[in-house]
């Protein structure tokens, strides 16, 4: 079936093609690939007349913008609205939406509490949880890759590593609000997310207080840094919230998408089992194919150029990460799930100073779940139609019926 979104070039803005399309249209969110292709073919940059912002959809341009915080700042907010303007004002995220020099100390604090040695130290615990969970499911033979695997697993190990506890309903509500909030202010998805999150707001505000954090996790370390005067007062709570915002939905998405892609491409599962060393690269390939955070925004700090076309200062620039990760200018046969390709250059984690700080945790979670399956599962099959939970910025499954066959 052809997608219903059509792309019309209606004029130009100083040479930048103006298009009349809505990347937050529900039909587009359901099946974005073909609209991305249209947009990439329009040019290295386009202007969306509906929202009055620029959009980058090709790989080189998206990556260059991620790498250049001086020109493409996040301080105007990671979403569509400029958070510095009175109508949209909200406090900036303490790490995502600040630039150097302020960013540097915050990033150092984050790196300290989730440093590579710290995360490597979690492996045993993450592995044991994956083994236990997968072991129980394999006895059943049929299960849901999201409700029984990606969601409960991530919600068990990740909050544990920070020192928090939360249930599925809370996590989904906060995640829906967070990622829908990157889109238009008047979005229906956002309005629904606001309703759903209301009962949990008090809990959410409590979560940033030191007393609710259990000892032994990254959260406690942050509050200790704050108490010792190593980071400013108030920062630890903001970072705990950032961890929850950035660390749950994204990894739930990647594990779910990974299971889906392997179920839909059985020869890739066979390949992975015969060459387990491909697992690390398989994770990057999953992120390339089904980029968890599909889009986010920068703001131009001054006049600049993209692909030779002039951009005006103080304008929002939408980066289509999912599109960049399927740009045929960069990837051969981009729609093919191929775990043997080198996909590490994908833009799903960002690049430059704002590149995902928690990616080793994301890798660890994926690694543990997949290894537990690889040990015993001969084949994974779809056992019904998968469904996505539509969101303005997050690509994630809500339903993934699976059937597994174990080794004889």
């Amino acid at each position: 079936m052809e997608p219903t979104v059509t792309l019309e070039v209606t004029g130009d803005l100083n040479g930048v093609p103006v298009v009349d399309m809505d990347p937050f249209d529900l039909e587009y969110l359901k099946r974005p690939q073909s609209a991305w292709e249209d947009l990439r073919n329009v040019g290295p940059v386009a202007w969306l007349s509906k929202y009055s912002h620029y959009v980058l959809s090709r790989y080189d341009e998206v990556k260059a913008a991620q790498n250049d915080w001086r020109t493409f700042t996040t301080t105007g907010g990671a979403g569509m609205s400029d958070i510095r303007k009175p109508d949209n004002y909200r406090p900036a995220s303490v790490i995502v939406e600040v630039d150097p020099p302020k960013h540097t100390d915050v990033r150092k604090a984050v790196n300290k509490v989730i440093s590579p040695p710290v995360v490597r130290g979690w492996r045993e615990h993450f592995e044991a949880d994956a083994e236990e969970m997968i072991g129980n499911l394999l006895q059943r033979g049929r299960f849901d890759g999201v409700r029984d695997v990606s969601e409960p697993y991530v919600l068990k190990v990740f909050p544990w590593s920070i020192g928090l506890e939360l249930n599925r309903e809370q996590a989904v509500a906060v995640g829906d609000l967070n990622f829908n909030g990157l889109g238009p202010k008047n979005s229906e998805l956002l309005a629904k997310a606001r309703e759903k999150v209301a009962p949990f707001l008090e809990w959410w505000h409590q979560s940033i207080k030191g007393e609710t954090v259990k000892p032994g996790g990254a959260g406690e370390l942050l509050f200790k840094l704050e108490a010792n005067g190593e980071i400013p007062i108030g920062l630890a709570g903001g970072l705990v919230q950032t961890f929850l915002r950035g660390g749950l939905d994204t990894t739930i998405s990647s594990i779910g998408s990974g299971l889906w892609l392997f179920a839909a491409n059985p020869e890739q599962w066979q390949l992975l089992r015969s060459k387990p060393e491909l697992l690390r690269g398989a994770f990057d390939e999953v992120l390339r194919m089904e980029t968890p955070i599909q889009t986010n925004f920068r703001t131009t700090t001054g006049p600049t150029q993209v692909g030779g076309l002039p951009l005006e200062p103080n304008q929002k620039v939408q980066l289509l990460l999912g599109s960049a990760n399927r740009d045929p200018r960069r990837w051969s046969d981009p729609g093919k799930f191929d775990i043997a390709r080198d996909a590490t250059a994908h833009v799903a984690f960002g690049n430059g100073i704002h590149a995902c700080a928690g990616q080793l945790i994301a890798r660890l979670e994926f690694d543990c779940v997949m290894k537990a399956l690889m040990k015993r599962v001969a084949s994974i099959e779809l056992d019904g139609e998968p469904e996505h939970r539509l969101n303005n910025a997050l690509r994630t499954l809500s339903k993934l019926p699976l059937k597994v066959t174990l080794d004889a």
Partner: protein
Amino acid sequence: MPRLIFKSSNGDKREISVEPGTTVMRAAITHNVDGIVAECGGAAACGTCHVYVDECTLAKLPAPESNEEAMLDYTAEPRAPNSRLSCQLKVTEELDGAVFVIPEKQR
């Protein structure tokens, strides 16, 4: 093409010729230079592509951005004033003859 020289902690030396535009880490991986792990694939997120850069080359390199700067504190071998993450170093013609000493341990 610029030539890059990698020295391992036991004195082994590898010289490779590299097209400009890639990163020092990627060049090392492509040429199977031992001791560059690059667990995170080049995102300055794991500190396992740590190298010590010769003084002359160091002066030619742009200073580390904040993400590299922060990660350099978590390398397995101690950070030195000439420590860099090779995934953040772009290969340019200027780097011809650059010497990178690979630490004994990366994690």
